[in-house]
């Protein structure tokens, strides 16, 4: 088919786009996973006024449409004196957004840890730091895996919006090839195929965690 030939000839554009999508998502996760855990700990353990403030902030962030947030970051960074590539604007906006959602996921996962587990840890003299590191987080990593997996897929989908602020990720690549060669079907189908692949990889990872969960918790 003509269209797919075009895709093949422009495969480096697609690979470059896909590479940016992957690097953005991975970069985002590298930052937002620890930040999300930290935020969840603050939401659980801090003094009431700080907790309420952070909770309101997280709630508010989850109401912001990602595209508008990306625009604000894109136009806002130069105002702060940072003349960065649009990729960085993409990373910052993706990270802020994903952290808010992960904070909520981790917070409810912390609450789901059995209370007597925590009491036993306290009775045995574990400090709060040990309690989180050795008892709560290991359990949460396994039990919250499906929800984190869903969030990763959402982040992959959100990354496509960054094309609108000229980040050259996968959808941008498909749109570019389609516009220049007037064969719309193949490029977008190829992009959809690659997104499906990424999604499949994430779900495979979640299934592995599910198997670990079966072994440990039955």
């Amino acid at each position, binding site marked *: 088919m003509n269209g797919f030939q075009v895709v093949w000839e422009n495969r480096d554009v697609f690979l470059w786009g896909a590479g940016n999508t992957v690097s953005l998502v991975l970069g985002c996760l590298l930052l937002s996973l620890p930040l999300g855990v930290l935020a969840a700990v603050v939401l659980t353990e801090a003094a009431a006024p700080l907790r309420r403030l952070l909770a309101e902030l997280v709630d508010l962030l989850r109401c912001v449409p990602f595209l508008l947030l990306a625009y604000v970051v894109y136009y806002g960074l130069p105002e702060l004196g940072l003349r960065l590539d649009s990729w960085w604007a993409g990373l910052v906006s993706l990270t802020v957004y994903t952290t808010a959602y992960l904070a909520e996921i981790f917070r409810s996962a912390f609450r789901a840890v059995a209370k007597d587990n925590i009491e036993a840890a*306290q009775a*045995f003299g574990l400090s709060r730091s040990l309690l989180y590191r050795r008892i709560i987080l290991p359990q949460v990593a396994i039990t919250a895996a499906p929800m984190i997996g869903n969030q990763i897929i959402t982040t992959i989908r959100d990354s496509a919006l960054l094309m609108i602020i000229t980040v050259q990720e996968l959808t941008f690549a498909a749109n570019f090839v389609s516009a220049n060669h007037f064969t719309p079907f193949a490029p977008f189908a190829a992009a959809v195929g690659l997104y499906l692949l990424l999604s499949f990889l994430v779900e495979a990872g979640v299934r592995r965690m599910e198997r670990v969960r079966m072994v440990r918790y*039955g």
Partner: protein
Amino acid sequence: MAETVPAIAVRGVCKDFGGFEVLRDIDLDIAPGTTTCILGPSGSGKSTLLRCLNWLDAPSAGSIRIDGEPIGRIGTDKAARPMDRRALAAARTRIGMVFQHFALWPHLTVLGNVTEAPVHVLGRPRREAEAEGRSILARVGLAEKADMYPHTLSGGQKQRVAISRALAMRPRVILFDEPTSALDPEMVGEVLGVIRELAREGLTMVIVTHEMSFARDVADTIVFMEGGCIREVATPHDFFTAPRTDRAKGFILRGSSTPEPPLKKA
């Protein structure tokens, strides 16, 4: 006469939950090397008292000393200030606890559960803790389960692991919060057997239980509670053959065979 420091000394402990008085002015001494069983009807405050001993629940008033060292609060009532978190954690390492629903950490193996606190709180070398852990598990008959996860075990086995976990800390005293109440009847015996063995070895233990015949058999002291107060403190023989209060008499008559439903925390 030489005075031995009580393993646990409770003075004037009161506890109220939102206006409802659960413990009223409790005074109690637990002598080292003895087994004390706390008996009483539901709502008598016995579990709350036990949980106050390691400050899982903080008394509203009063003091508690473990081997002469205060826990939870330093100073007398007027000038008392709460212990800081680190000191409290350190104090708790000297008190072992076994929970009604086992409270094992599900993401760790049996051996992992037993060695977790010795390694990460007491700082013992892992190899030494594991060797000791395995030998304790062998003593309670669970050597071959050391590398399995808790969910594969029966209730009686889980509770024996919980006991091993407490023993691994080499505590001064072990608290048991209704250790057999959550077990199917056929598994009660294996857990009581382990506790009996520990009593024989001279471990200081405080056990809240419904198993009256077990208490009669194993305890050095019976503490009978009712309505938030200690009503009687006596040897098993004295308590069961000649209870002094009417409430105790009624309680003994009602017998221990009816399993009580798990108490809802106020």
